[in-house]
């Protein structure tokens, strides 16, 4: 199936399903750090997930994690554990929880919370160093979180 065809199919599916609306960052239900339900109801796209994970202005997960499965991505950081095999260590609900707000799984962790909009000290307007002009948006959108999770679940040992 081509990517385009797949998207069309997904769009059709989404249209067919009675409007499952996106879960807002402040409304996410965590159970022991896990999120069992999709944040959007639309299946994630692992290819888009890779883009999010390797783009500076988006997830930039490779700033801190080595992903051996993506050898072409230069300068992978070594602050967190390598993500290879991560799907054998955690199930999908755990992974979604870790990407959305890792602090609820790893207390005090250095890893940023990617789907969170409150509780910050002097949050800025993205990377401008200035105060925000409007309400904060999460670093990643709900669908981007789903895309990342869709890629992570492929990282089996």
């Amino acid at each position, binding site marked *: 199936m081509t990517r385009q065809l797949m998207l069309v199919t997904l769009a059709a599916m989404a249209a067919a399903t009675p409007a499952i609306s996106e879960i807002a960052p402040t409304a996410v239900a965590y159970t*022991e*750090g896990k999120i069992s339900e999709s944040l959007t109801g639309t299946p994630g796209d692992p290819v888009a997930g890779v883009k999010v994970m390797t783009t*500076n202005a988006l997830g*930039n997960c*490779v*700033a*801190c994690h*080595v992903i051996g499965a993506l050898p072409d991505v*230069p*300068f*992978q*950081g*070594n*602050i*967190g*554990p*390598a993500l290879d095999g991560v799907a054998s260590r955690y199930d999908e609900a755990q992974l979604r929880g870790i990407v959305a707000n890792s*602090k609820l*799984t*790893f*207390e005090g962790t*250095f890893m*940023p*919370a990617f789907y969170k909009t409150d509780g*910050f*000290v*002097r*949050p*800025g*307007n*993205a*990377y*401008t*160093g*200035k*105060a*925000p002009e409007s309400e*904060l948006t999460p*670093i990643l959108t709900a669908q981007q979180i789903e895309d990342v999770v869709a890629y992570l679940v492929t990282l089996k040992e």
Partner: protein
Amino acid sequence: MQKQMIKTLAASAAFGLALTGMAMSTPVDDKLVIEGEEGTIELVTSTKAPEHLQEVMDTIYSGWHYREDDTRSMQMDDFDNPAMVFVDRGRDLWNAAIGKNGESCAGCHNGPESMKGLRAVTPRVDAKTGKLMTIENYVDACVTERMGLEAWGWTGDKMKDTLALISMQSRGEIVNVAIDGPAAPFWEKGKEVYYTRYGQLEMSCASCHEENQGLFIRSDHLSQGQINGFPTYRLKDAGILSAQQRFVGCVRDTRAETFKPNSDEFKALELYVASRGNGLSVEGVSVRH
């Protein structure tokens, strides 16, 4: 149950960290010997951590140890050090009769050598006013009050050229800022800023420069974030950077609203960060990327 999970996971993550860290977690083992006009001098770029840091680290290292070979070697010969151009500019400015009535820095202070030692002990609390003074604050007082000029921008060229010149006069001297007595409340405030996790990324100075120093965040080899090398010539900016300018960049990178240069917060932070480098040499003007 949740607590336990957090603990187990944290333990395995720490193990992973130790493993990945091993390969290149150490600052480069090298000595900073500089060829200058007055001969060669060797700087102290690593030493025992000052007393107040000993609970968190044994050894402090200049940021010089974390840079690539070519960046390190640029600082080993004044002829190759691009910052020296700015020191020379600072010297010209020092001698120029720029004051409203023709005053010059040299007219009152003689040669810039009269500033020897100052960089090693600032920021410090001024005995008369009780204010915390950076070198920039001293320069600003002379420019505006003694020369009748408009204030220079805190991070403008004139200020930074002068800073570079003054800092050079203390090259090789050991950083020794006071943290007790009248400095104590400023120091405590700076420490609080250092450990606060700012911004949407919720990171403190310590998150990067204490807990993860030596590791790589993308292509950046994390140093201890010392300022004994400041002002520095930053290759990326092709210009001189003051310590507080560097702080602005680091805070901005946490998706935070930064503090401004010369704000109470950044002045206190400069004192606190300087004190983490008590024992290292003032590098005069360093080279970083």
